[in-house]
């Protein structure tokens, strides 16, 4: 039951309706049952078991940590919780490669493919680790209510692709009394619809063109690679921010505010700035729970300690996305970009400062363009099916004009892509300048109907999955 399916479009309104009529004290049960039903619909018993295991272990571990005074036992409990969560993550992620090694016939039998789904595990295990670490650092108190804790980890709008929620942000909201809010209903549905548009009209369309090239790299060269690399940069933004909008929108129907995951990432002026704007809940996680401990542990090595911490953190980030070399290289590339920034940016800023150009508008534009290109270049490794494919693309980026021409691809018309992109950029431009809620009723409702039309007519429904679902 994925977010862009008809079943989901029926599911969440049904849950919302039931939610209205249940007494406040039992509302958490509605959401928890809905979340379990949502996860069960995947027909993946391994996933349900691993989620249940993480919930039980983390719930009791969190309470045990809080009860212990400062000392070695408290630290050991934290490490136990962290190792247990990472163990579950690795076990689920590596079950298929492991079985493929010892019993390929079983592992590759399509009848058992549901046993190897990994949906959601990467997200709630990280969320659980952050919960335990925050209890250890006395940032939050452990949740005493088992049901609410299970809901905190399994809340269906964010179950499959995040955001990774901090205990201090989400847990208190699950205990608040619910008062139906027309404003949240309106904004939630609008957010969901906008996210759906981004996914089906922009991301799915772009995926068709990108797929043509990336599935058969040796048949293309030069301009095709450059074009599809830029297209992929937009595709992945539309895909993931589309999903996030849908998640935030549905959560808002229940008066729950999930974390913003995106903040105009391609207007970043540096790679560090990019990571403050892209997949924000994940980058905050790796900053707080991987980078800072490493950097602090290596502080006596000065700036090289920071460089080392960045390289390790972002290689970890790459491997979290996928256990293959191209993801590791993608992560490492970002680590290298950030390390270079730490080493050279202060000097560059000083040099530009002495000639009075440090904050000059042209310099800012150049920074945005350079950052976007660095990030787009790294996406090549993220999208490519293998390291050798990525290597081929990178070494043939400027190999001239090939015979790749953007044509209408069957039902996928190029003009529709241009229209969808215009809508996407237009709305993003206007959102910060115009308050929709302050417009006259006729204007607002015309726009709502136009959005529904856009979803229906520009949407591509060819079963292209969400990109971040695979992580």
């Amino acid at each position, binding site marked *: 039951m994925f977010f862009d399916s008809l079943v989901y479009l029926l599911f969440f309104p049904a849950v919302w309706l039931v939610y209205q009529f249940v007494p406040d004290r039992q509302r958490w049960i509605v959401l928890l049952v809905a979340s379990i039903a949502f996860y069960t619909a995947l027909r993946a018993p391994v996933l349900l078991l691993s989620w249940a295991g993480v919930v039980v272990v983390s719930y009791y571990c969190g309470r045990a940590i809080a009860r212990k005074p400062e000392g070695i036992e408290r*630290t050991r409990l934290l490490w136990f919780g962290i190792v247990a969560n990472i163990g579950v993550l690795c076990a689920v992620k590596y079950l298929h490669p492991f079985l493929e090694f010892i019993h390929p016939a079983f592992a590759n039998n399509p009848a058992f493919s549901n046993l190897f789904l990994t949906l959601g595990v990467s997200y709630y295990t990280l969320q659980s680790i952050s919960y335990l670490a925050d209890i*250890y*650092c*006395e*940032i939050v108190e452990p949740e005493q209510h088992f049901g609410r804790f299970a809901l905190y980890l399994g809340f269906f709008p964010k179950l499959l692709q995040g955001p990774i929620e901090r205990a201090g942000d989400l847990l208190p909201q699950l205990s608040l009394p619910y008062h139906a809010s027309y404003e949240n209903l309106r904004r939630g549905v609008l957010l969901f619809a906008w996210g759906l548009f981004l996914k089906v009209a922009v991301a799915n369309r772009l995926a068709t063109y990108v797929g043509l090239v990336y599935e058969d790299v040796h048949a293309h060269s030069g301009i095709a690679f450059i074009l599809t690399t830029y297209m992929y940069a937009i595709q992945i933004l539309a895909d993931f921010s589309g999903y996030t909008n849908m998640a935030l929108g549905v959560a808002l129907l229940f008066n729950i505010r999930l974390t913003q995951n995106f903040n105009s990432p391609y207007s970043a002026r540096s790679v560090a700035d990019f990571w403050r704007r892209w997949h924000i809940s994940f980058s905050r996680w790796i*900053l707080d729970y991987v*980078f*800072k*401990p490493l*950097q*602090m*542990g290596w*502080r*006596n090595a000065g700036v090289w*300690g*920071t460089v080392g911490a960045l390289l390790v953190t972002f290689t970890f980030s790459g491997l979290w996305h996928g256990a293959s070399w191209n993801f590791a290289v993608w992560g490492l590339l970002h680590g290298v970009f950030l390390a270079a920034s*730490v080493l050279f940016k202060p000097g560059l800023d000083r040099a530009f400062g002495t000639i009075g150009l440090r904050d000059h508008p042209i310099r800012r534009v150049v920074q945005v363009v350079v950052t976007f290109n660095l990030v787009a270049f790294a996406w090549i490794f993220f999208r490519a099916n293998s390291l050798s494919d990525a290597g081929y693309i990178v070494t043939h980026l400027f190999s001239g004009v090939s015979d790749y021409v953007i044509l209408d691809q069957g039902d996928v018309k190029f003009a529709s892509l241009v229209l969808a992109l215009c809508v996407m950029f237009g709305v993003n431009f206007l959102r910060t300048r115009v308050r929709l809620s302050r417009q006259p009723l006729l204007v607002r409702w015309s726009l709502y109907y136009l959005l529904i039309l856009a979803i229906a007519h520009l949407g591509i429904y060819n079963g292209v999955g969400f990109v971040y679902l695979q992580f």
Partner: protein
Amino acid sequence: MINSDLKQTILGALKLEDWDLKDETTAAEVPGWDSLHHVNVILAVEKQFGVKFKNLEVLKLKSVGDLQRLLDSKISSR
């Protein structure tokens, strides 16, 4: 109450002329006190006062007051 030596050490590490550092001041409120410079602050404090912090002790700090109290406990247990 933040000790003036600690205050000067922090300001020196952040290359700030002056800033009102109170017990409840957090890093986010002080210009330039980001994750990259936080390490410099901790190193400067360790060097100035001749103490060594454990990683987990530092990671738990939430305010300048927490840092002051951690420092005091290190000095008094010498």
